């Protein structure tokens, strides 16, 4: 995206000042919620409000007309007024130097022929005035570097490096809720609404050059010009990974066709093929989509498909191995020199193959040492680590039980909690040192999120996967993208 084209998007995502047009004093109305959310999220720029009544809402003085507001202080107008008012509003905003508008207003293209006419008129007006028009009929825009939460729904997610663009506002909320839960944050998020003037591809092109964003996450429903869209997506994926959640993939594009090829050509199959061609990785569920993006944002790309599983118990390793076997990843045969090296650290009952099942033979330093040996081995491209937090879970039961802190419980509880925190940190450290992904999975991430194991994973800025199968699915996204790049000699 050229500098000239970026400027209006800068006004949308990093405005110097925001005007809420159609601000309401009623806490149930969008015009109140939007103003509330902007103020509550700690937005640093100036905040203005207009409505027909004037007065003051949430401490912000309300102007009756845009003309009363200062010149040049406002980059973004968040529009909650009805369609009939919006042409005059945009004209007035343009005179004040506004360069971007987010229209949350409904009643446009989604509302019959009259709405469609109003929509094309407002698009044309935006173009004439040089105002970037986001929406209409969208939930809003979030930009954590500017502490901006200009949306009519919660939450305001933690800052991070995932950039979201969605054809459904509710999925923006879903992804942001996952960001709240996991601590893996969002850089920008926008609900495209009717995407009358600005579409998903426009946002994704902006994100591709955005230094705040490491990966894009998009929800796509309808695709109006597939060929053009994918040409543009190819430009995005050359620069950054893109995870797409596609709605409506089961709708069969059954066509009356003379050819077998035609009758086999479903929309879903063609979409999937096109994604593979341009390096977009496709997720089939909301959590898979978020976790794939979170992994791109927090782990290095693997150089190859060879995965080693380090586990403290057998069953977990077996199920994880099965998931790897079903994926495009590869459960690496344990190299002899690595086996010998681990032999020196563990009693002989360990699995002596991959999954590397320590089988309870570990002592104080075994886990960090084995993680390092495995990740450092040139025959291993990625590591999945299972079993974090078990001891701290027992520690919690002891801490909450009737005997604590006596009978030596205080000391052992502290030891277990210290150890799990240490293991979580070791996983992150070894990943950073080797440049290889090391993913930690335990259901304690959601069953007991304060357990020092998963809690420390979060503190290292990484995702603690709630199941090893989910870690494998996320890692597969990274490998598909890395492989796509490598085969096309990108980097």
């Amino acid at each position: 995206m050229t500098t000239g084209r970026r400027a209006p998007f800068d006004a949308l995502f990093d405005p110097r000042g925001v005007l809420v047009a159609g601000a309401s004093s009623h806490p149930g109305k969008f015009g109140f919620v939007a103003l509330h959310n902007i103020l509550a999220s700690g937005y640093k720029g100036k905040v203005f409000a207009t409505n027909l009544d004037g007065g003051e809402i949430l401490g912000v003085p309300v102007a009756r007309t845009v003309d009363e507001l200062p010149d040049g202080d406002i980059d973004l107008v968040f529009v909650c007024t009805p369609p009939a008012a919006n042409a005059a509003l945009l004209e007035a905003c343009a005179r004040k130097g506004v360069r971007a508008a987010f229209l949350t207003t409904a009643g446009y293209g989604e509302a019959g022929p009259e709405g469609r006419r109003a929509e094309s008129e407002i698009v044309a007006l935006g173009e004439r005035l040089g105002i970037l028009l986001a929406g209409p009929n969208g939930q809003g825009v979030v930009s954590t570097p500017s502490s901006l939460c200009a949306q009519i729904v919660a939450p305001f997610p933690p800052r991070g490096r995932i950039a979201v663009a969605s054809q459904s506002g509710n999925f923006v909320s879903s992804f942001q809720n996952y960001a709240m839960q996991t601590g893996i944050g969002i850089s920008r998020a926008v609900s495209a609404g009717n995407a009358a003037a600005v579409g998903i591809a426009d946002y994704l092109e902006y994100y591709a050059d955005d230094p705040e964003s490491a990966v894009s996450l998009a929800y796509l429903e309808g695709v109006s010009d597939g060929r053009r869209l994918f040409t543009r997506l190819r430009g995005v994926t050359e620069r950054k990974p893109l995870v797409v959640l596609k709605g409506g993939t089961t709708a069969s594009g059954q066509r009356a066709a003379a050819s077998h090829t035609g009758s086999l050509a479903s929309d879903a199959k063609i979409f999937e093929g096109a994604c593979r061609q341009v390096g977009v990785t496709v997720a089939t569920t909301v959590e898979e989509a978020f976790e794939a993006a979170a992994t791109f944002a927090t782990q290095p790309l693997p150089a190859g498909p060879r995965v080693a599983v380090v586990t403290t118990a057998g069953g977990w390793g077996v199920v994880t191995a099965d998931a790897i076997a079903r994926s495009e990843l590869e459960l690496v045969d344990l190299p002899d020199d690595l086996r010998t090296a681990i032999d020196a650290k563990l009693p002989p009952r360990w699995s002596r193959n991959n999954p590397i099942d320590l089988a309870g033979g570990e002592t104080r330093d075994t886990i960090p040492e084995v993680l390092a040996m495995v990740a450092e081995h040139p025959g291993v491209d990625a590591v999945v680590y299972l079993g974090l937090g078990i001891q701290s879970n027992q520690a919690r039961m002891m801490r909450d039980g009737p005997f604590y802190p006596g009978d030596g419980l205080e000391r052992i509880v502290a030891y277990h909690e210290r150890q799990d925190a240490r293991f979580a940190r070791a996983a992150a450290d070894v990943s950073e040192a080797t440049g290889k992904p090391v993913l930690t999975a335990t259901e304690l991430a959601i069953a007991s999120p304060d357990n020092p194991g998963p809690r420390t994973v979060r503190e290292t800025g990484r995702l603690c996967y709630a199941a090893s199968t989910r870690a494998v699915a996320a890692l597969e996204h990274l490998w598909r993208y890395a492989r796509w790049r490598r085969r096309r000699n990108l980097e």
Partner: protein
Amino acid sequence: MSTLSEARSKQLLARYGVPVLDERTARDADDAVAAAAGIGYPVVVKLCGDRIAHKTERGLVRLGLHDGAAVREAAMQLLAATTSEDGPVELLVAPMVRSARELIAGLHTDAQFGPCVMVGIGGVLAEALADVTFRLVPLTPVDADEMLDDLAAGSLLGPFRGEPPVDRDAMASVLLALSRVAESEPQVQSVDVNPLMIVDGRPVAVDALVEVTE
């Protein structure tokens, strides 16, 4: 929209590098017998014409003919089965090939995505399995190679029932040829290569149907 005869479909595809059998066209039974002798037995004889799109359903394919008498009888029966709606017809004489593996490949013009190349598992279960994958034209060699990895029954491409593994480069070159057809022949709306048989590990178009705009 109209279709090209099998012979003309294959001639077009062959020009772009899709491998086809050593086939001959024949006007009548004498011609067909001569063609069969030139090819070597056993042979297949089919009735072929621009307006004949579904030969198998109409019984217009005779397989496994082992001598001149069988070819003559088949040719006469096929010519007699011609209807007035078929327009100009001819016979197509081809060597009889057998393969444990039938794939399907083609070209589809999608309303949203434009021309797309397809490859998948062919044979009678093709549409039930729908184990197919698509890419948008134009394909790169990497795209074509990756398509083969998409197939759920990808193990079919390895060594199979005493046959060698499928020559991946040869498969990819079929897909690249289809991509070039789409780029260079804008009148082509769809292509069916069904079956694309794997003979001695290499793909060959045993039947083909090209659909063109009028």
